[in-house]
């Protein structure tokens, strides 16, 4: 019987395969980036600070009780309706806005499309959303509420941005981040414009216990 030698498999390219694998994983691995809802806290008021008097109609009150139920402007509400209600409130534009820093009197909101009802907010830059929660409220619900309110602002900003610059606000922000030089200054102005038109004013009231 003829002895048949088994032919050796050429292993020379194994190294290439291993390197290929190594490089593939190196490139595709992303460290998980921490992301979340960002918030700016207000500074600690001095002891003799008197809170400004704000008209009732400019405050949109959201209460969350310990059973995670919502009470919005003294009516019970489901979470899914919150966004619409918030948009209606912010976009109302029933009166004049805040006077400018240089003393110019506040102008009525010319980009609002709301009902202009005198019993709701005057101007987006006066509209304050106040979230009051119970100490026993679930954090998850609290975040959901914050998220819905932020969504309302996003909808409005996107709408305005589409009208003024023909691009959505989220797209504009992304472009601003990627831009350089002169283009960056130009885009910054646009971003600031939209931001000041619909400033996010969400305040957290001290929780009830």
């Amino acid at each position, binding site marked *: 019987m003829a002895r048949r030698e088994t032919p050796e498999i050429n292993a020379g390219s194994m*190294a290439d395969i291993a390197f290929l694998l190594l490089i593939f994983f190196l490139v595709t691995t992303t460290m998980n980036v921490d992301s979340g809802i960002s918030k700016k806290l207000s*500074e600690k008021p001095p002891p003799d600070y008197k809170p400004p008097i704000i008209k009732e109609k400019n405050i949109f009150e959201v209460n969350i009780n310990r059973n995670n139920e919502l009470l919005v402007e003294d009516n019970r509400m489901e979470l899914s309706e919150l966004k619409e209600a918030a948009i209606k409130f912010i976009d109302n534009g029933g009166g004049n806005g805040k006077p400018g820093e240089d003393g110019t009197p506040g102008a009525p909101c010319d980009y609002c499309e709301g009902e202009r009802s005198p019993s709701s907010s005057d101007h987006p830059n006066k509209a304050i959303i106040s979230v009051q929660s119970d100490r026993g409220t679930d954090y998850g619900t609290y975040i959901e509420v914050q998220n819905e309110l932020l969504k309302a602002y996003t909808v409005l900003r996107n709408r305005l941005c589409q009208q003024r610059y023909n691009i959505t606000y989220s797209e504009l922000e992304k472009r601003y981040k990627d831009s350089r030089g002169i283009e960056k200054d130009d885009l910054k102005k646009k971003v600031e414009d939209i931001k000041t038109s619909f400033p996010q004013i969400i305040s957290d009231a001290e929780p009830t216990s």
Partner: protein
Amino acid sequence: MSKFKKKKKGMPAVNTASLPDIVFMLLFFFMVTTTMRETSLQIEAPRLPSATEIKKLEHKSLVSTIYVGKAKDEKYGTAYNRIQLNDKIATPEDVPSFILRAREEVSEGEIPFMTTSIKADKESSVGTITDIRIKLRDVNALKLSYSTQTGADN
């Protein structure tokens, strides 16, 4: 003796069959020795709530993280309200010193850009978060981020 004499044709090829082994060994060595710099959790990994309107946290060195959730150790109770700072279970009273220590590690100009990220469990109560928030405000650490998962848009 002609039996042992073999004709040599050119250079013998270097045996490269063990090269993959070397590469794999390197790969495993780096895999094993790489540690992600992350604090070991004394609480159960918080189940983060999900949200859509989120912002990415940039400059990792300027972020200090506070964990809130259920302690692994049962002596701390089973409520989802334990706070972890660095490697220890702590109370809200410890938050200011935690922030001040984090500030020492960065240059003065960067302090206003420091962000505190709160990683809290869905079932934590808002009261605990508020306690932390009040303490943060006391030390003027005003940038805050509630860490969430990316949720589906509905």
